[in-house]
Protein backbone atom coordinates (compact mmCIF):
# COMPACT_ATOMS: atom_id res chain seq x y z
CA UNK A 1 0.00 0.00 0.00
CA UNK A 2 1.38 3.42 -0.93
CA UNK A 3 1.70 6.03 1.79
CA UNK A 4 0.72 8.81 -0.60
CA UNK A 5 -1.96 8.91 -3.23
CA UNK A 6 -0.78 8.22 -6.75
CA UNK A 7 -1.88 10.44 -9.60
CA UNK A 8 -4.87 9.41 -11.68
CA UNK A 9 -3.57 8.59 -15.10
CA UNK A 10 -4.43 6.45 -18.12
CA UNK A 11 -2.39 5.51 -21.16
CA UNK A 12 -2.65 2.90 -23.87
CA UNK A 13 -0.51 1.66 -26.70
CA UNK A 14 -0.85 -0.80 -29.58
CA UNK A 15 1.75 -3.44 -30.38
CA UNK A 16 2.10 -5.95 -33.19
CA UNK A 17 1.29 -9.43 -31.93
CA UNK A 18 4.75 -10.97 -32.08
CA UNK A 19 7.39 -11.98 -29.57
CA UNK A 20 9.72 -9.15 -30.55
CA UNK A 21 7.04 -6.70 -29.30
CA UNK A 22 7.39 -7.93 -25.73
CA UNK A 23 10.40 -5.73 -25.12
CA UNK A 24 8.40 -2.70 -26.32
CA UNK A 25 5.54 -3.68 -24.00
CA UNK A 26 7.98 -3.64 -21.07
CA UNK A 27 9.42 -0.27 -22.12
CA UNK A 28 5.89 1.20 -22.33
CA UNK A 29 4.96 -0.15 -18.88
CA UNK A 30 8.14 1.11 -17.26
CA UNK A 31 7.54 4.59 -18.70
CA UNK A 32 3.96 4.70 -17.41
CA UNK A 33 4.93 3.39 -13.95
CA UNK A 34 7.69 5.99 -13.84
CA UNK A 35 5.06 8.70 -14.33
CA UNK A 36 2.93 7.11 -11.61
CA UNK A 37 5.99 7.06 -9.32
CA UNK A 38 5.49 3.42 -8.44
CA UNK A 39 8.41 2.13 -6.39
CA UNK A 40 10.99 -0.09 -8.09
CA UNK A 41 10.14 -3.40 -6.43
CA UNK A 42 6.46 -3.20 -7.29
CA UNK A 43 7.25 -1.79 -10.72
CA UNK A 44 9.38 -4.88 -11.53
CA UNK A 45 6.56 -7.20 -10.46
CA UNK A 46 3.92 -5.32 -12.45
CA UNK A 47 6.10 -5.25 -15.57
CA UNK A 48 6.56 -9.02 -15.25
CA UNK A 49 2.81 -9.63 -14.89
CA UNK A 50 2.00 -7.44 -17.89
CA UNK A 51 4.74 -8.98 -20.04
CA UNK A 52 3.49 -12.47 -19.15
CA UNK A 53 -0.07 -11.55 -20.13
CA UNK A 54 1.16 -10.10 -23.43
CA UNK A 55 3.25 -13.22 -23.97
CA UNK A 56 0.14 -15.36 -23.47
CA UNK A 57 -1.57 -13.45 -26.29
CA UNK A 58 1.36 -14.12 -28.65
CA UNK A 59 1.77 -17.73 -27.51
CA UNK A 60 -1.83 -18.85 -27.11
CA UNK A 61 -4.37 -16.50 -28.74
CA UNK A 62 -2.19 -16.41 -31.88
CA UNK A 63 -0.70 -19.88 -31.54
CA UNK A 64 -1.42 -20.82 -35.18
CA UNK A 65 -0.72 -17.39 -36.67
CA UNK A 66 2.97 -16.60 -36.16
CA UNK A 67 2.97 -14.15 -39.09
CA UNK A 68 -0.11 -12.18 -38.09
CA UNK A 69 -0.23 -8.45 -38.71
CA UNK A 70 -2.82 -8.00 -35.95
CA UNK A 71 -2.23 -5.68 -33.04
CA UNK A 72 -2.86 -6.02 -29.33
CA UNK A 73 -3.54 -3.05 -27.08
CA UNK A 74 -2.30 -2.59 -23.53
CA UNK A 75 -4.06 0.06 -21.45
CA UNK A 76 -2.78 1.07 -18.02
CA UNK A 77 -5.09 3.13 -15.81
CA UNK A 78 -4.62 4.32 -12.26
CA UNK A 79 -7.58 5.77 -10.42
CA UNK A 80 -7.85 6.31 -6.68
CA UNK A 81 -4.76 4.16 -6.11
CA UNK A 82 -6.29 1.25 -7.99
CA UNK A 83 -4.29 0.06 -10.95
CA UNK A 84 -6.13 -1.52 -13.86
CA UNK A 85 -4.34 -3.03 -16.83
CA UNK A 86 -6.45 -4.04 -19.82
CA UNK A 87 -5.37 -6.18 -22.76
CA UNK A 88 -7.28 -6.35 -26.04
CA UNK A 89 -6.63 -8.76 -28.87
CA UNK A 90 -8.39 -10.28 -31.88
CA UNK A 91 -6.98 -13.79 -31.59
CA UNK A 92 -8.61 -17.11 -30.82
CA UNK A 93 -11.28 -16.63 -28.14
CA UNK A 94 -9.93 -17.57 -24.74
CA UNK A 95 -11.89 -19.94 -22.55
CA UNK A 96 -11.31 -18.46 -19.06
CA UNK A 97 -12.00 -21.88 -17.53
CA UNK A 98 -8.90 -23.22 -19.24
CA UNK A 99 -6.63 -20.36 -18.18
CA UNK A 100 -5.06 -21.66 -15.02
CA UNK A 101 -1.61 -22.61 -13.92
CA UNK A 102 -0.57 -26.21 -13.43
CA UNK A 103 -0.98 -28.09 -10.20
CA UNK A 104 1.77 -27.50 -7.66
CA UNK A 105 3.04 -31.06 -7.94
CA UNK A 106 3.51 -30.82 -11.70
CA UNK A 107 7.05 -29.59 -12.30
CA UNK A 108 6.61 -28.91 -16.02
CA UNK A 109 7.32 -25.23 -16.73
CA UNK A 110 4.16 -24.48 -18.75
CA UNK A 111 1.67 -22.31 -16.89
CA UNK A 112 4.35 -20.52 -14.91
CA UNK A 113 3.51 -17.19 -16.56
CA UNK A 114 -0.13 -17.45 -15.50
CA UNK A 115 1.04 -18.34 -11.99
CA UNK A 116 3.20 -15.18 -11.91
CA UNK A 117 0.27 -13.04 -13.03
CA UNK A 118 -1.96 -14.49 -10.33
CA UNK A 119 0.71 -14.09 -7.67
CA UNK A 120 1.35 -10.45 -8.51
CA UNK A 121 -2.14 -9.11 -9.25
CA UNK A 122 -5.22 -9.00 -7.02
CA UNK A 123 -7.75 -9.83 -9.72
CA UNK A 124 -7.34 -11.47 -13.13
CA UNK A 125 -10.47 -11.67 -15.24
CA UNK A 126 -11.62 -11.92 -18.82
CA UNK A 127 -14.50 -9.57 -19.60
CA UNK A 128 -17.58 -11.23 -21.09
CA UNK A 129 -18.85 -8.06 -22.67
CA UNK A 130 -16.96 -7.66 -25.93
CA UNK A 131 -15.76 -4.30 -27.18
CA UNK A 132 -15.70 -4.53 -30.98
CA UNK A 133 -13.48 -5.33 -32.83
CA UNK A 134 -11.75 -7.06 -29.94
CA UNK A 135 -12.21 -10.76 -29.22
CA UNK A 136 -10.42 -11.06 -25.90
CA UNK A 137 -10.42 -8.44 -23.17
CA UNK A 138 -8.36 -9.34 -20.12
CA UNK A 139 -8.25 -7.05 -17.10
CA UNK A 140 -5.68 -7.24 -14.31
CA UNK A 141 -6.22 -5.13 -11.22
CA UNK A 142 -4.20 -4.29 -8.14
CA UNK A 143 -4.85 -1.99 -5.24
CA UNK A 144 -1.75 0.11 -4.72
Amino acid at each position, binding site marked *: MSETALINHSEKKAFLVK*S*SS*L*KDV*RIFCREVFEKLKIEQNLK*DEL*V*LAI*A*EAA*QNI*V*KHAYKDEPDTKDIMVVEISCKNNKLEIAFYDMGTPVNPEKVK*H*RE*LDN*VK*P*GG*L*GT*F*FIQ*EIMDVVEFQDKKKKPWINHLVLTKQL
Partner: protein
Amino acid sequence: MTFKVEDINNTKIVHLEGEIDMDVTDKARQTILPLIEAGNEVHVNLSKVSYMDSSGISVLIESKKLSEEKKTKFELKEVSKPVEKVLAMARKFL
Protein backbone atom coordinates in the same frame (compact mmCIF):
# COMPACT_ATOMS: atom_id res chain seq x y z
CA MET B 1 20.37 -10.90 -24.93
CA THR B 2 24.02 -11.66 -25.57
CA PHE B 3 26.10 -14.57 -24.35
CA LYS B 4 29.57 -16.00 -24.24
CA VAL B 5 30.82 -19.46 -23.31
CA GLU B 6 34.05 -20.06 -21.39
CA ASP B 7 35.75 -23.37 -20.80
CA ILE B 8 37.39 -23.57 -17.38
CA ASN B 9 38.78 -26.93 -16.24
CA ASN B 10 36.37 -28.80 -18.51
CA THR B 11 33.37 -26.90 -17.15
CA LYS B 12 31.41 -24.79 -19.61
CA ILE B 13 30.54 -21.40 -18.14
CA VAL B 14 27.70 -19.71 -20.03
CA HIS B 15 27.51 -15.97 -19.35
CA LEU B 16 24.13 -14.55 -20.28
CA GLU B 17 23.57 -10.80 -20.44
CA GLY B 18 20.57 -8.53 -20.95
CA GLU B 19 16.87 -9.34 -20.95
CA ILE B 20 15.62 -12.90 -21.41
CA ASP B 21 12.10 -13.26 -22.72
CA MET B 22 10.17 -15.44 -25.18
CA ASP B 23 11.82 -13.67 -28.11
CA VAL B 24 15.31 -14.88 -27.18
CA THR B 25 14.72 -18.15 -25.32
CA ASP B 26 15.44 -20.23 -28.42
CA LYS B 27 18.86 -18.60 -28.58
CA ALA B 28 19.48 -19.38 -24.89
CA ARG B 29 18.17 -22.94 -25.33
CA GLN B 30 20.35 -23.54 -28.40
CA THR B 31 23.37 -22.26 -26.47
CA ILE B 32 22.94 -24.28 -23.27
CA LEU B 33 21.26 -27.58 -24.19
CA PRO B 34 23.87 -28.85 -26.70
CA LEU B 35 26.59 -28.33 -24.09
CA ILE B 36 24.69 -30.51 -21.63
CA GLU B 37 23.76 -32.98 -24.36
CA ALA B 38 27.49 -33.42 -25.01
CA GLY B 39 27.96 -34.43 -21.39
CA ASN B 40 29.57 -31.23 -20.09
CA GLU B 41 29.16 -29.78 -16.63
CA VAL B 42 27.49 -26.44 -17.31
CA HIS B 43 27.38 -23.35 -15.11
CA VAL B 44 25.17 -20.43 -16.12
CA ASN B 45 26.26 -17.02 -14.90
CA LEU B 46 23.24 -14.73 -14.57
CA SER B 47 24.93 -11.74 -12.91
CA LYS B 48 24.28 -9.50 -15.93
CA VAL B 49 20.71 -10.58 -16.67
CA SER B 50 18.48 -7.59 -15.97
CA TYR B 51 15.14 -9.29 -16.68
CA MET B 52 13.89 -12.85 -16.98
CA ASP B 53 10.33 -14.08 -17.43
CA SER B 54 8.68 -17.51 -17.31
CA SER B 55 10.09 -18.51 -20.69
CA GLY B 56 13.62 -17.97 -19.37
CA ILE B 57 12.83 -20.01 -16.26
CA SER B 58 11.55 -22.77 -18.57
CA VAL B 59 14.95 -22.95 -20.28
CA LEU B 60 16.65 -23.32 -16.89
CA ILE B 61 14.23 -26.10 -15.92
CA GLU B 62 14.78 -27.90 -19.23
CA SER B 63 18.54 -27.60 -18.73
CA LYS B 64 18.37 -29.00 -15.21
CA LYS B 65 16.23 -31.93 -16.35
CA LEU B 66 18.54 -32.72 -19.26
CA SER B 67 21.58 -32.61 -16.98
CA GLU B 68 19.89 -35.15 -14.69
CA GLU B 69 19.21 -37.40 -17.68
CA LYS B 70 22.82 -37.06 -18.82
CA LYS B 71 24.09 -37.49 -15.26
CA THR B 72 26.08 -34.29 -15.38
CA LYS B 73 25.94 -31.06 -13.39
CA PHE B 74 23.99 -27.91 -14.18
CA GLU B 75 24.37 -24.95 -11.82
CA LEU B 76 23.33 -21.31 -11.66
CA LYS B 77 26.07 -18.88 -10.64
CA GLU B 78 25.96 -15.25 -9.54
CA VAL B 79 22.25 -14.73 -9.99
CA SER B 80 21.30 -11.05 -10.39
CA LYS B 81 18.70 -9.54 -8.06
CA PRO B 82 15.93 -9.30 -10.70
CA VAL B 83 16.43 -12.96 -11.65
CA GLU B 84 16.65 -14.08 -8.01
CA LYS B 85 13.30 -12.48 -7.39
CA VAL B 86 11.65 -14.29 -10.30
CA LEU B 87 13.28 -17.57 -9.26
CA ALA B 88 11.97 -17.09 -5.72
CA MET B 89 8.45 -16.65 -7.09
CA ALA B 90 8.87 -19.67 -9.39
CA ARG B 91 10.00 -21.87 -6.47
CA LYS B 92 6.55 -21.53 -4.93
CA PHE B 93 5.21 -23.04 -8.15
CA LEU B 94 7.78 -25.74 -8.82
